[in-house]
C-alpha cells in the first residue's frame, strides 16, 4: 500500500512523509492536548499502538502503526515534569507501557487508574532512570503484587512461576479457577528486566549492535535489523541492493526456524510427542547451516548497521537452495500429518480463541493477529525492496483458536520458503557494506521490520562520535500477554501451555 494518497502523510494534518521502504514520520509536540488529539485521530483511523516509552530527554514516545505507515508520536516534557497524559483510554494496551514509565522514570500517567507497579518489583530505592538522578540502592525485600481477586463460591487461585516446569523464560501467571475452568488469568512480568534502555546509553555502534542482537534470542535478525535501519536512517546511509537481499533472506530464515520450533512444541504440548522429534531436527539442520554459512547458529550479529557480517557466495546459494528444497518436502508431509491427526486437531480447535474483535481492540499484529482476522504484514502492506518484487502473500484466518495459529505458521513457512527461493535465485550481489559517517549533531532514526512474531520497532538517537544517546527496540510481545489473558478464560488449566505456546510471546522482549 502506498502512503502518497493518505491524508495522514500530507502537510495539512501535520504528518510529513519521510523516505525509506516503509513510510514513517516523526511527529513532535509540546502540547499534551495535541498529543492526545493526534492519538485520537490516529486511533479513529484504525491505527495500532506498537510500543510506548520514555528516554533520557524528558519525553514520551509512542510508535503507532497505520495502514499507510508508521507514526512516531512524541510529547516533549519540561525538565521538572512530574506527569504526562495517559493514552490508555485511546489505546488500552498503553496502560502497562505507562506503568513501566512510572516505574522506571517516576513520571505519573495522568488519567490512568491502575498505577500498580509493572516492571518494578520493589527492589530499587527509587525509579532507576529518573530524569533527576540520584544513586540507586538495592533493597533486600521486594513487595507483593496486588493481583485482581475473583470472588465467588469455589473460586481459588493457582500461582505459577516465575520458575516454570520446563525450559521456559521466567514470568508469573495467576489463574483464578473454578474446578478445572479458568475464570481469569493475570500475568505479572518484569523478571527478566535487564535495564536495556540504560545499557544502550553511551555505547558505540558495534557494542550497541551486539546488544540489539540480544533483545530476544529468537528474534536476533529482526531486532538487529530494526536497530540497523534506525541507525541508517539517522545517519542517512544508503544500503546496497546485495545487502538488502541478504538481510531479507536472513529474516525469512529466522521466521522459518522459529515457526518450525513452535509447530513442533505445539504438537508436543497437545500430546503428540513425536512432533518434537520430527520438527526439531529440521530446525537443528537450519542452525548448522547458519553456523557454517553465517558464523552463528541463531544468526546473532549477522546484521550490522550499514550491512551484514557475512555476504553470499555462489556455493552458499547452492547450499541454501538444496536446504530450501528439502524443507519444502519435509514440511509438506508434516503439514498433512497434522491435518489428518484427529486427536491433535481436537486439542487445537476451539482452544484459546482470540476473537477478531478483541484482537482488533488490542491492536494485535503478527501471527496472532493474522490468525484472528487482523490482516497486517509489513512485507505485504508496503513496497519494501527486495521482498515486494516477489509479491508476498498474506496469511489470514478468522477463527483465532490454536488451530488458526498453527495454520498461519504452516502457511508462512511455505511462503517464506518461496520468497527465500526467489531471493536466492535472483541475488544481484555483491553485498557491499556501507561506511558509517560521524553525525555532526545528534540525529534520530527509526526502523521497522516484520519479525517472526510480528512488527519489531527500532529507534535510536545518535550523538557525534557515533555514540548512542538512547535506543528503544520493541516487538509485539507486551501486547501478546493481553491477547493471552483475553483468550485463556473459559479454557481448562491444562490447556494453558498449549495456548501460551501458540502465542509464544518473548518474556525478555517484554521486560527489556
Amino acid at each position: 500500500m502506498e502512503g502518497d494518497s493518505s491524508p495522514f502523510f500530507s502537510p495539512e494534518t501535520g504528518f510529513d512523509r519521510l523516505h525509506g521502504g516503509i513510510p514513517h514520520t516523526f511527529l513532535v509536540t509540546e502540547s499534551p492536548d495535541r498529543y492526545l488529539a493526534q492519538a485520537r485521530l490516529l486511533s479513529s483511523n484504525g491505527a495500532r499502538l506498537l510500543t510506548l516509552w520514555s528516554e533520557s530527554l524528558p519525553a514520551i514516545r509512542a510508535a503507532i502503526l497505520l495502514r499507510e505507515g508508521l507514526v512516531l508520536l512524541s510529547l516533549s516534557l519540561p525538565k521538572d515534569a512530574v506527569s504526562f497524559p495517559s493514552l490508555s483510554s485511546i489505546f488500552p494496551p498503553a496502560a502497562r507501557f505507562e506503568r513501566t514509565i512510572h516505574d522506571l522514570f517516576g513520571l505519573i500517567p495522568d488519567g490512568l487508574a491502575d498505577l500498580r507497579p509493572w516492571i518494578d518489583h520493589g527492589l530499587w530505592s527509587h525509579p532507576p532512570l529518573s530524569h533527576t538522578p540520584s544513586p540507586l540502592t538495592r533493597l533486600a525485600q521486594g513487595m507483593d503484587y496486588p493481583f485482581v481477586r475473583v470472588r465467588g463460591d469455589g473460586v481459588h487461585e493457582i500461582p505459577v512461576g516465575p520458575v516454570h516446569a520446563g525450559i521456559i523464560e521466567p514470568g508469573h501467571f495467576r489463574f483464578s479457577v473454578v474446578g478445572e475452568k479458568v475464570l481469569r488469568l493475570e500475568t505479572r512480568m518484569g523478571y527478566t528486566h535487564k535495564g536495556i534502555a540504560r545499557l544502550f546509553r553511551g555505547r558505540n555502534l558495534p557494542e550497541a549492535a551486539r546488544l540489539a542482537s540480544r533483545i530476544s534470542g529468537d528474534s536476533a535478525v529482526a531486532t538487529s535489523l530494526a536497530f540497523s535501519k534506525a541507525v541508517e536512517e539517522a545517519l542517512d546511509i544508503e544500503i546496497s541492493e546485495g545487502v538488502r537481499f541478504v538481510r531479507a533472506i536472513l529474516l525469512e530464515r529466522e521466521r522459518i526456524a522459529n515457526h518450525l520450533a513452535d509447530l513442533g512444541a505445539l504438537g508436543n504440548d497437545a500430546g503428540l510427542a513425536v512432533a518434537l522429534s520430527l520438527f526439531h531436527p529440521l530446525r537443528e539442520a537450519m542452525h548448522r547451516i547458519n553456523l557454517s554459512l553465517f558464523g552463528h547458529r541463531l544468526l546473532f550479529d549477522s546484521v550490522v548497521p550499514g550491512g551484514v557480517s557475512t555476504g553470499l557466495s555462489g556455493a552458499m546459494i547452492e547450499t541454501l537452495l538444496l536446504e530450501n528444497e528439502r524443507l519444502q518436502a519435509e514440511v509438506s508431509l508434516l503439514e498433512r500429518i497434522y491435518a489428518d491427526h484427529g486427536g491433535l486437531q481436537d486439542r487445537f480447535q476451539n482452544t484459546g480463541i482470540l476473537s477478531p474483535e478483541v484482537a482488533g481492540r488490542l491492536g494485535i499484529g503478527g501471527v496472532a493477529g493474522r490468525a484472528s482476522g487482523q490482516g497486517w504484514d509489513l512485507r505485504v502492506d508496503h513496497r519494501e525492496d527486495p521482498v515486494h518484487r516477489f509479491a508476498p502473500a498474506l496469511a489470514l484466518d478468522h477463527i483465532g483458536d490454536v488451530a488458526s495459529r498453527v495454520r498461519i505458521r504452516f502457511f508462512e513457512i511455505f511462503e517464506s520458503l518461496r520468497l527465500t527461493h526467489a531471493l536466492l535465485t535472483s541475488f544481484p550481489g555483491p553485498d557491499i557494506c556501507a561506511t558509517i559517517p560521524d553525525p555532526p549533531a545528534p540525529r534520530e532514526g527509526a526502523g521497522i521490520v516484520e519479525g517472526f512474531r510480528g512488527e519489531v520497532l527500532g529507534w535510536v538517537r545518535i550523538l557525534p562520535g557515533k555514540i548512542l544517546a538512547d535506543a528503544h527496540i520493541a516487538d509485539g510481545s507486551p501486547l501478546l500477554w493481553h491477547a493471552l489473558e483475553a483468550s485463556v478464560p473459559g479454557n481448562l488449566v491444562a490447556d494453558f501451555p498449549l495456548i501460551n505456546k501458540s502465542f509464544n510471546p518473548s518474556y525478555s522482549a517484554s521486560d527489556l
Partner: protein
Amino acid sequence: MWKLLWKILKTGTLTESPTRTQEETGRPPFLHSASIRHVDAGSCNGCELELWALENPVTSLSSLGFSFVASPRHADILLVTGPVSCHMKEALETTHQAMPAPKRVLAVGDCAISGGVFRGSYATHDGLSSILPPDVTVHGCPPPPEAIVEGVLRAFGSPPHHS
C-alpha cells in the same frame, strides 16, 4: 495415521554420539543418571533455544542419562542461564535451597558467568559468581548444544558441594 508411522520409520535414529568420548575428556565413566533443574535468571532466550536443542533427537541429552525435571526436589544439577536479574535472584536462590544435597551449579552462557552484554546494568548481578558460585561454566553466547552436553558431563563428574 499411516503417514505418521511411515514418517517415524523412515526417520530412524538421528542421535549422534558426543563429539568426544569419556576417555578423551578424562571424566569418570557414567554410572548413574542425573536430573537437571533449569532456571532462566533473565536471559535473552538464546540459551533456552540451545537447551531445547539438547532435547531434540540429534543431541538427545536424555539418551546420555540426563533429564530436565520440573521440581528442584528431584534435581542434582542446577543449570542457570542469564545474567541473574535482580528480579530473579530470590527465585534462583529458593530453587537452589529446595534441591537436595549433593548438588552442583552449572552456569551456561557468558551472561550466567559474568553478565555478558548486559554486564554493568542496574538491573542485574553480572552473573552467578556473587550469588551462587558455579561449579562448572560453559562459555558462549549462546554455547552450542555440544558444549552444553560437555558442561553437563563435567558437572556430573565434578566434586559435589553440600551447601
